[in-house]
């Protein structure tokens, strides 16, 4: 009645259907899993200096631009973000500020890839920014900013950018620019 090819076809089709149904279920149900986490960042020190010693081969303004060095404490526990469909959590500390040139500036200062809930606790003291921090303009056009912790969950399968939350924004002050001075702090 049925030949081998037809039987094989039926088995293959059924297997595919089951796999896709399972994948869809996992993807959609993980949208409803509630998630929240604790993350606090406290600024300890900030200093701005002219980048005379900075080497950045791609940035022609590097030697004239002003760079901010920050030291901050990170107290975070994002283990609760790991549910059955969470492969990794990408955590960032972002400086957000407004200047006359740019209405929105968001710059990542530090980031971390977290792959398991065991590695999701942070008690870091006086950590420095991982990436060079300079404004779009040569000199920082802002005197205040916000330090915000962001995270981005990558699933095993399914939707991205659905549970990105900015938490615990902390306002900070930038040292005011003093012309002719190469290094200034608060």
């Amino acid at each position, binding site marked *: 009645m049925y030949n081998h090819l037809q039987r094989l076809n039926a088995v293959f089709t059924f297997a595919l259907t089951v796999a896709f149904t399972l994948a869809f279920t996992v993807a959609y149900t993980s949208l409803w899993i509630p998630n929240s986490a604790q993350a606090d960042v406290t600024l300890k020190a900030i200093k701005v200096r002219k980048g005379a010693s900075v080497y950045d081969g791609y*940035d022609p303004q590097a030697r004239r631009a002003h760079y901010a060095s920050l030291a901050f404490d990170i107290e975070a526990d994002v283990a609760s973000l790991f549910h059955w469909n969470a492969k*990794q959590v990408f955590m960032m500390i972002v400086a957000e500020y407004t200047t006359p040139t740019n*209405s929105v500036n*968001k*710059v*990542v200062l530090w980031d971390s*890839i977290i792959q398991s809930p065991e590695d999701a606790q942070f008690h870091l003291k006086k950590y420095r920014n991982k990436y060079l921090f300079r404004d779009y303009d040569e000199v920082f056009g802002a005197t205040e900013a916000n330090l915000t912790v*962001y995270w981005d969950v990558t699933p095993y399968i399914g939707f991205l*950018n659905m549970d990105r939350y900015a938490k615990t924004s902390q306002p900070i002050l930038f040292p005011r620019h003093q012309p002719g001075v190469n290094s200034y702090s608060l």
Partner: protein
Amino acid sequence: MEILQTIRSFSIRQMLLQTLNFMMVLSTAFMFWKGLGLYHNTESPIVVVLSGSMEPAFYKNDILFLANPKTPIDIGEIVVFKVEGKEIPIVHRVLRVHTDAETGSQRFLTKGDNNKVDDRGLYNPGQLWVDRKDVVGRVRGYVSYIGMITIVLNENPQIKYAVLGLMGLMILLSKE
């Protein structure tokens, strides 16, 4: 020569019907692709990851679903962008965003999670930023491994044509 006999047993009318059927399958797939792209405002709604620069989030052979809504792109989002004059788009994470106060247009600096440095070395000489118009899509969905099929097919054209030919034959020769 069973196949030839099967073909000979078809009337012209049946033959044309089968061909039409085959075309339907092809055009349905094509319209699904284009419709998805139109809905999500992107020229390529599904892309395959070709390199390991976003590991451990994305590995080679994973597939990504893209959408490109006009809303502002946020920091930490993973975007697919093209560098002018270069064919292959890049999938990387947004490390810096600056929104022009006058025009409201965004500029980005990107970086691969698995790379030590940001992407300025991948941009054109003298280019410091990725513009909003260079962004082809924003990653919205993720499925691992499936892209392997397209990579194998693209790297071995013989297999691609064999599979296509086989599919065509099966559809042409199947009787309802």
